[in-house]
């Protein structure tokens, strides 16, 4: 046997394995959607993916705060600042002078880093975070919140080009997550808020509702919110296209999942259903109508 046969055979075998990974990967490492934006799943590879994308998700806050790094307040800090509402509150990672034991090291740290007690509330343009959303979705294509938030940031321009880019981004995400609730809901929201196309949006909300019903017991908290949102928007879309029978049906159905919701029944109240000929007065926003 000639000497190059062995390396050739080895390279061919490696190539064959490489080619077949697309078919093998879904079996040995099936996509698992995370429960929360900062949670991973059980396989090691996916943990690395979700940790990296989770870190990028958290890092968007640094970009929004113009480089100032924030952390959650401890319970003691929250109590001292009068935040006793049980919710998470943020504070700067580098403490203010009064709370820093490091003396001059602390002063220098505050000077060389992005830190400002007043400016910490200033927000940067969210579009600065777009590459982070792109990276998140590359690293973890099942990170649905990255797809939907990224699309909304792209569509912030409210230009047709931006809308199309956002839709394209969402389509890519939907291909990877065909059973999710959030992405079809975001599609529908974009159709209403950017194109005012209620008819087209109905199809997306119906798809979101269908996905939500099928996986209701497995939905994460975020997805449940998206499911509720899909019902609310669907109700609104039916109302504004005059399909009151379907609207009532959607409200009844939605209330079986979310019996405490006030918005859905409120949307269907006859007093606020505008007649087909209704024209809002000049200056009144029509975004939701």
């Amino acid at each position: 046997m000639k000497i190059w046969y062995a390396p050739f055979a080895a390279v061919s075998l490696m190539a064959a394995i490489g080619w077949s990974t697309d078919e093998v990967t879904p079996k040995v490492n099936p996509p698992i959607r995370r429960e929360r934006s900062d949670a991973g799943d059980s396989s090691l590879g996916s943990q690395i993916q979700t940790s990296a994308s989770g870190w990028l998700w958290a890092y968007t806050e640094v970009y929004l705060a113009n480089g100032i790094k924030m952390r959650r307040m401890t319970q003691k800090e929250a109590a001292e600042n009068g935040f006793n509402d049980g919710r998470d509150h943020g504070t700067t990672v580098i403490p203010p002078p009064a709370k820093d034991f490091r003396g001059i090291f602390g002063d220098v740290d505050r000077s060389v880093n992005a830190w400002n007690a007043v400016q910490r509330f200033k927000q940067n343009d969210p579009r600065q975070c777009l590459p982070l959303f792109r990276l998140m979705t590359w690293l973890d294509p099942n990170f649905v919140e990255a797809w939907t938030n990224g699309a909304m940031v792209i569509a912030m321009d409210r230009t047709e080009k931006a809308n199309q880019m956002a839709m394209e981004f969402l389509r890519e995400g939907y291909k990877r997550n065909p059973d999710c609730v959030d992405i079809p809901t975001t599609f529908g929201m974009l159709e209403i808020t950017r194109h005012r196309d209620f008819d087209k949006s109905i199809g997306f909300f119906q798809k979101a509702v269908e996905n939500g019903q099928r996986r209701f017991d497995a939905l994460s908290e975020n997805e449940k919110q998206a499911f509720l949102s899909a019902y609310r928007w669907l109700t609104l879309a039916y109302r504004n296209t005059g399909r009151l029978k379907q609207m009532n049906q959607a409200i009844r159905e939605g209330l079986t999942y979310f019996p405490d919701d006030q918005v859905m029944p409120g949307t269907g109240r006859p007093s606020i259903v505008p007649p087909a000929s209704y024209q809002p007065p000049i200056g009144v926003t029509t975004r939701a109508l």
Partner: protein
Amino acid sequence: MFARVKTYKALARGVVLESIRRKDLWVVAILGFLILIGSGALGFFGVDGMQVFVKDLAVTVLGAFSTIVAVMTSTRLLPEEIKQRTLYPLLARPISRLDLLIGKLAGAIAVTWLAFFLLASLTSVALLSFHVRFEAIMVQYMVAKMMGLALMCAFGVMLSVYMTPSAAATTAFVFTFGSSILIRAMTSAYEVASPGMQFVFKFINAILPQFTLFDMGGRAANVGWDPVPMWVMAFLLVYLVIYGSGLVTIAWTRFNRRAL
């Protein structure tokens, strides 16, 4: 005094030539090439108006690569001289062990700065291709980073006197990349710690090398931040001189007693 400077210069020149002979700077050039390739891939995102991301990536890559060069260069200098027995002809000359230590450290700093300039130049080309606007804080970032790299070299040389090159490099990486995490954890936990633990935190903070103070990346990458006051730059220089001298003294104490 002049003769001493001449000695340091000769020793440092030897380190730089050795680094060129070992093709270390080729590695830096390859890393720089990766920066340019990476920046080309960034164009795929369409980074117009996304200067924060581009600058953030640039300072992160620059900081990480230059730290790697600083640690790898400084931690292997003395052990290699001892292993290859090239230390004996050096010490046969009329130079003290302290002179040798300082000369080698100067060489490590020179190699690191050279690599840093090379990487910074390539990064600047990448930034310019994205029409990133340069601000005054960038100059301060460079100066502070160079001071920080010099401190890292002193730390690496000190560790290499006490440990094997691999252990010294690992320990140096733990401190250079991990000290900021430790300091952030201590500042967050200080208020809820017991008085005894608070004393421990103060002690650790005092002796820990404050590499994080030399990194203005967070400020340079974001928009609208003013340059830092000059007293801060002066403080960093004084800290470098005092802490660096301390590290050299610790290294010399051991190296001077070492049987060769």
